[in-house]
């Protein structure tokens, strides 16, 4: 029974593509057959984050226009043979694909894959409409900032209007040290405003920058962000896992402990 998940946010730059890469890779690690689809036409970057940009021959627009079969466009992941990427086009724009074409494509893919994850572009126009057309459920990514939350709220309203009932929240780039000082909204604050279920909170982690630049998703690693993403994947599969204690800020805490010992 395949599940089609769209990862959206409204606001740009909050971590949709990173989340798509990590959640997809995590589900593949847990032995599921996964395909990631980059629906941001014209500004593709899921391939870069996955480290597969030099393997692209055909893309999503080629498939919907009938220039190739979808199997020819799918790229197998470097590490996991059960993980595939359908990249977007870099030289077209969002009007090249319609919601109906997306639905048709996803129906085909459902026959072969357990999870189809759609990386949605920022905004609420054609790109967004294309991405949500075939989705069963949505993961909203937001950072704990008022502007991101405002946009996320708008998106939730639009999703509910488009009959997508299962909507879960990922709070990304949370900094517990700032939350403790009262300078950043807490996870609870965000959940209270958006009023949807929280499926995971990912801390702001330097390792993410390294991982995206190298094209190597860090899900399942020992880093805090890696653990957080892996827990999100397990929750998607239905496991009930306690939320990580994110106040372990890792590097700085170890450093201060080191100084305390030396005094």
């Amino acid at each position, binding site marked *: 029974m395949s599940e089609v998940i769209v990862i959206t946010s409204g606001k740009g730059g909050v971590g949709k593509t990173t989340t798509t890469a990590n959640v997809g890779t995590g589900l593949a690690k847990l032995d599921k057959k996964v395909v990631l689809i980059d629906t941001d036409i014209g500004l593709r970057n899921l391939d870069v984050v996955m480290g597969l940009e030099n393997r692209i021959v055909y893309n999503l627009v080629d498939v919907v226009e009938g220039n190739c079969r979808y199997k020819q466009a799918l790229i197998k992941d470097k590490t996991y043979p059960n993980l595939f990427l359908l990249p977007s086009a870099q030289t077209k724009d969002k009007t090249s694909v319609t919601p109906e074409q997306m639905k048709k494509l996803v129906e085909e893919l459902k026959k072969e894959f357990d999870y189809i994850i759609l990386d949605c572009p920022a905004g609420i126009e054609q790109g967004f409409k294309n991405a949500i057309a075939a989705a069963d459920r949505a993961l909203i990514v937001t950072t704990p900032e*008022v502007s991101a939350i*405002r*946009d996320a*709220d*708008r998106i*939730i*309203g*639009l999703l*509910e*209007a*488009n009959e997508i009932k299962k909507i879960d929240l990922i709070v990304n780039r949370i900094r517990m040290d700032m939350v403790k000082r*009262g*300078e950043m909204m807490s996870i609870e604050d965000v959940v209270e*405003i958006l*009023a949807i279920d929280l499926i995971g909170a990912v801390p702001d982690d330097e390792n993410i920058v390294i991982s995206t630049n190298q094209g190597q998703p860090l899900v399942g690693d020992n880093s805090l962000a890696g653990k957080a993403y892996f827990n999100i994947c397990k929750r998607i599969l239905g496991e009930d896992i306690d939320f990580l204690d994110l106040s372990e800020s890792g590097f700085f805490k170890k450093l201060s402990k080191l100084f305390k010992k030396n005094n």
Partner: protein
Amino acid sequence: MKNTVIIKGNRYGISIVLDKDISFSQLLKDLEARLEGAEEFFDSDKQLAVTFEGRDLTNEELDEILSVIKGCSRLNIQYVMDENSDLETTFFDIIQTAKDTGDESDNSAVMEESEPVEVSGILSTIHDQAANTSGSSPGDHTVPQQTRADNTGMFYKGTLRSGQTLESKESIVIIGDVNPGASVVADGNIVVIGTLKGTATAGNNNDTNAFVMALVMDPIQIQIADVIARSSDTKSHFKKKTEPMIARIQNHQICVEPVR
């Protein structure tokens, strides 16, 4: 031919002037004829108050007349007035107590926005209404309103999200939150049983008596009639203990105070 039945409209309903000399059965026939002739003037399904003049009627006669009216017209008689009381004033009083937003009727001859003429206070009217659940339309901007004909206010159950607008020509009660970026516009009052963080406009028809009330009052902007107030620029980061607040106009300014 002398008119034995004359039907007059006033701002709040209709008066039926009955000839006092003819026989009752003749009167009924004339009434029927008059109503059938005048059907295009009367809007269907409007609730009305009616008063009878010119002739004393027993209760049975009154019943018969009412059933004739019901039978051959689409008038929905809510209330029958005693002809001895001062008519205009009494109509007006009844309407005033039945709604909270004041006199909305206009002077056009017959039946436009006839108000429900029920002699019940505002609060009991609101309590008697079942909460309506209203979903957002696919086109996203305005949330469709579901009102029953005898409401004086509209209910919305759920959270109003950023980008959504809820509008009404009456009052609105929201059972849920109003998120920042959402807006509520009412000709009457606005009551939010939840957190108001968006924009609220009450008294949209220039009614300076309208109010906005919320359990947690934290709006971006409030407008009552033509007075607009905005939230302060400094936002405190820690949560204050809040209580239900009500905003209304005093001295041409919007004042917010706790609900006692």
